[in-house]
């Protein structure tokens, strides 16, 4: 048990942090629902950051930290699946990736080169032609798309599917972890500045306690994500995804409640994180799906 980073890990996370800080400093004159990170995508590609997980001295844990950090940004790109799931497929497949779960619209589907098609327990891989996918308008702050189903699908073996599902869970939890961090920070900033009844909102006990509770939940999500990425254990992945979806449901509501009317506007960025989180709450079977996996994988009858 040792939570210090290796020098390689530190170097990489510092590089990601610098890249992210650069994007955070850019003025966003954006009042829509989905802020596409086209430039971010380009820089990550140019820097070969999508291949972090495959570098022996870095590995999936470092890639997970990168996914988490990049989710703080107001803009979004298909990062998590490419960094964390793509490396675990038998052959090198083209990115961007997207998931179609039981036929529902999915994130980044309209521009995906590789689709992971989930139907119940099966996972298949498809490479859709441009006319087999279509963008969909939505409230979610990701570009959403649908798949007409016109593409040949290669079904993965049971063990490959389990492995992909594990990394999908870690990718999901890492993304939620980063989004929660950014959403909380943005709300804290608002509460600390904004005044009501002659006091900063951040001095009101009820708001302070709620923010603190949100922070504790989000911190727990982050620890579970890092552990899952480190142990590469299926049960740990399910725990991380469950705690992420469970905590996020509550946190998103609380943050909007605390931000008040400002959080309803597209002028404040909160929705850029919370409406990404909302798109993630139902993925991989939602809380019920993760709970079933936890129940199957994580209870140790012998030690009881």
């Amino acid at each position: 048990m040792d939570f210090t980073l290796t020098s390689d890990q530190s170097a990489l996370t510092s590089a990601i942090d610098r890249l992210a800080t650069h994007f955070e400093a850019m003025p966003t004159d954006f009042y829509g629902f989905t802020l596409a990170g086209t430039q971010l995508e380009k820089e990550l590609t140019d820097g070969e950051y999508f291949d972090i997980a495959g570098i022996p001295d870095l590995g999936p844990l470092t890639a997970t930290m990168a996914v988490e950090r990049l989710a703080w940004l107001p803009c979004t790109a298909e990062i998590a699946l490419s960094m964390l799931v793509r490396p675990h497929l038998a052959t090198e497949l083209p990115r961007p990736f997207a998931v179609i779960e039981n036929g529902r619209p999915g994130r980044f589907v309209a521009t995906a080169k590789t689709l992971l098609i989930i139907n119940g327990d099966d996972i298949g891989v498809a490479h859709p032609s441009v006319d087999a996918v279509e963008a969909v308008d939505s409230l979610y702050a990701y570009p959403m798309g649908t798949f007409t189903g016109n593409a040949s699908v290669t079904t993965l073996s049971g063990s490959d599917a389990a492995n992909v599902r594990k990394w999908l869970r870690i990718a999901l939890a890492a993304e939620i972890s980063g989004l929660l961090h950014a959403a909380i920070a943005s709300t804290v900033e608002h509460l600390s500045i904004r005044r009501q009844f002659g006091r900063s909102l951040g001095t009101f006990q009820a708001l302070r306690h709620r923010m603190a509770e949100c922070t504790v939940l989000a911190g727990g999500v982050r620890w579970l994500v890092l552990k899952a990425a480190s142990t590469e254990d299926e049960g740990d992945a399910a725990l991380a995804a469950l705690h992420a979806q469970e905590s996020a449901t509550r946190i998103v509501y609380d943050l909007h409640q605390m931000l008040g009317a400002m959080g309803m506007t597209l002028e404040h960025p909160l929705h850029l994180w919370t409406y990404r989180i909302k798109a993630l709450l139902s993925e991989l079977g939602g809380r019920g799906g993760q709970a079933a996996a936890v129940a199957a994988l994580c209870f140790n009858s012998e030690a009881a």
Partner: protein
Amino acid sequence: MDFKWDSEQQSFRATVRAFLSEHLPADWEALAHGPGSAAQSTFSTKFCGALATAGLLVPHWPQHWGGRDADPWMAFILAEEMWAAGEPRGGQYMNVNWIGPTLMRFGSEEQQARYIPPMARGETIWCQGFSEPEAGSDLASLRTRAERNNGSGYRINGQKIWTSYAGVADTCFLLARTSVGKNGISIFLVPMDTPGITVRQIPSIIGEGDIHEVFFDNVEVPKTAILGAEGQAWEIVRTSLSLERVGIPRFALAARMLDRAVATLKKSGRFNGGAIEQAARAKAACEATRLYSYSIIDQRKRGLPPGPEASAARFATVTAERLVGEFVVEQLPDALAGGDPLLLAHHQRAIVAGIASGAAEIQLNLIATELLRMPREPR
């Protein structure tokens, strides 16, 4: 004590439903998304005209003003059915619920004659100029100023925010400061085409046209624009809030959307496991909220003033809408990605519920003080 509807109430509800199924066009649910949009407002004005013709716009108003003195249950049944349909009256629900009745009580003869009949005919849209930047729901720190001008009127300067329907409204029910202190606030009835008023739409998650900033830049109004006496705003607003306290039957849409989401999930074999528990929990919250609201109508029917239970009903509403909203996001996420415009509209409105018209936290404070009689917080 009886939880059943009598035959008159049942037949009134049937009348309202029949009206809705006749007058709501096929694309109504798509329009319901984006309250305050130009398209919805155009439709709402037409719809409210038809409601008025059918005697269903202001049945609870006095006969003198075009109503038929229907009792509070009728008004609430009407509101339940309208809200469950996605509120096709648009912003006009405010006229019917509290702006009209407030004018009947506090308005001058001239104001009543000018403003009430068009409301009763469903021709007019109002907006309420209450919230200000930095002030939130704290009336005492209101900054918009109305100063006596050289003639016998007032010159208004200031800024309002979060104003719903401002982009389509013809009149504003405006709070402005005429002198210092709590009793220095007055109400002005201001035509929105008065020179010096600028409206900026704030882009929002809730959809097109819902919230705005309204700027008042040397807006000149006559003395007759004031409602009641100078400085009477606090008293008038308290009365109108108590009229509004019955609240909007938001639970009616939440309950209907829950039913719809469950029906959709059942059709595709997705109603099982955690979805069942989550749906049941939301259902219980909706029905508890419905009964809370009925209890307030029951009090009103008996002539009792609205008590702190109204705050409880409000907070229960917030919870019910939240649970339905979360259920849809988790179990039927496709509804918000092109799947169902009315489920989308419900989601967007539920965001507002806990925040607008007396934030949830304010209701909680009222409940602690008035219902639980706990000592007040120090300021």
